[in-house]
């Protein structure tokens, strides 16, 4: 069974004010009996962070598509990282100028999924918070591709999407850092989205993200909701 993706990325007020591009990027796709979703958040202080996040999303898709679902974590992460570096080299962009977070989730038609998460942002479901940025510091202190050199910097995991209410949310920190209760937020957002078509869902998401209620919010905001149809059971 293929999941339905609801996805949206909006540019933050600070970047609009400074005439900067959206430094977040998202991609999601299905092929054969597999699916992948990725959101990346370029580090705002770097000159090519928009390119960094875009190429990281493409590299993440490449890594998952060119490796077996059961490949070990290091294989997936290393393939992603090397592909990202190669893409930047082609574009003549230094990695240090294109630092970006990466939140990658990929799965199979039977409901299994895995994730690899570097830097800020969050993966959540209506049942639990699967992966959150290391909360040892303060706001906007992130690591990412271009800074990290260790597999241990990544948060890695797996599960069955059925154990998560058939829904997963990938969010950049423009959203996740302002959430009071990520699981309740995930439940509410996916409840609303599942009643809408993809197009209607995207319009609704765009309105919510552009009218974000937290005073002083400034970041770009990007979200992908991965939803399996109701009543889904293992094939």
């Amino acid at each position, binding site marked *: 069974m293929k999941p339905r993706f609801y996805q949206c990325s909006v540019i933050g007020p600070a970047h609009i004010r400074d005439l900067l591009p959206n430094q977040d990027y998202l991609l999601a796709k299905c092929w054969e009996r597999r699916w992948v979703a990725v959101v990346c958040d370029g580090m705002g202080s770097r000159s090519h962070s928009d390119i960094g996040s875009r190429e990281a999303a493409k590299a993440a898709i490449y890594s998952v598509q060119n490796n077996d679902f059961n490949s070990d974590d290091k294989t997936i992460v290393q393939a992603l990282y090397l592909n990202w570096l190669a893409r930047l080299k082609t574009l003549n962009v230094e990695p240090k100028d294109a630092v970006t977070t990466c939140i990658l989730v990929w799965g199979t038609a039977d409901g299994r999924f895995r994730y690899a998460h570097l830097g800020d942002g969050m993966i959540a479901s209506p049942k639990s918070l699967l992966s959150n940025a290391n909360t040892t510091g303060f706001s906007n202190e992130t690591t990412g591709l271009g800074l990290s050199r260790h597999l241990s910097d990544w948060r890695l995991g797996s599960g069955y999407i059925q154990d998560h209410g058939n829904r997963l949310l990938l969010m950049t920190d423009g959203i996740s850092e302002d959430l009071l209760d990520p699981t309740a937020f995930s439940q509410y*957002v996916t409840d609303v989205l599942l009643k809408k078509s993809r197009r209607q869902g995207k319009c609704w998401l765009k309105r919510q993200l552009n009218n974000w*209620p937290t005073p*002083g919010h400034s970041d770009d905001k990007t979200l992908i909701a991965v939803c399996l149809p109701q009543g889904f059971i293992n094939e």
Partner: protein
Amino acid sequence: MSINDFVAKAARPLPVIILADVSGSMGVDGKIEALNQALKDMIESFAQEGRMNAEIHLGLITFGDRVTQHLPLSPAHQIKAFSRLNASGPTPMGAAFDMVSQLLEDKELIPSRAYRPVVIIVSDGLPTDDITQPLSRLRSGERSQKATRLALAIGSDADLSYLKTFSNDPEAPLFQANDARDIRNFFRAVTMSVSARSRSAKPNESVKIEYLPEDDDDLLELGF
């Protein structure tokens, strides 16, 4: 039900914690009076600051007869009153370092969504307790090491070496005040810097503190 029910309604906090020396020596030459006035002015300025990009939270730890949270860390606009400081007792700076370390490590008090805190110490004397270990803990703590630390040494008796070690702002290794007026000027400069940060689109980035000792703002520019 709407998305508003799940999202924070307050801007991200920008914590500012003052460590104020209230030992007996602060009671001479009008230093404690100047500090009281400077803190009162700072609180009033922060309270009036808009809360669009960041909400300034202010805390005041005093060290003298005892080490205490004179003002527990809270949103500046909610601080209703400021009871004046009195100078007496020794200078237990090490215990004050431990107290601020605890605050900085407390994720309930300072959530991870907060912007990088600013810690400012103001002292005119030598510590009377051990500060080596407390300062080391402050400088190496998981979160406390990430705070911006500034120091103001008042007069010639202040322990410059420790205060220099306390500061971690390369652009401001140590501020010095020669008299009570300088204390007020320093706090005014810090207030302007923090306020500018709170209004900035990037509140994590430092704003230079424009402080000059003996900057006599009473001096009229008369051209002769």
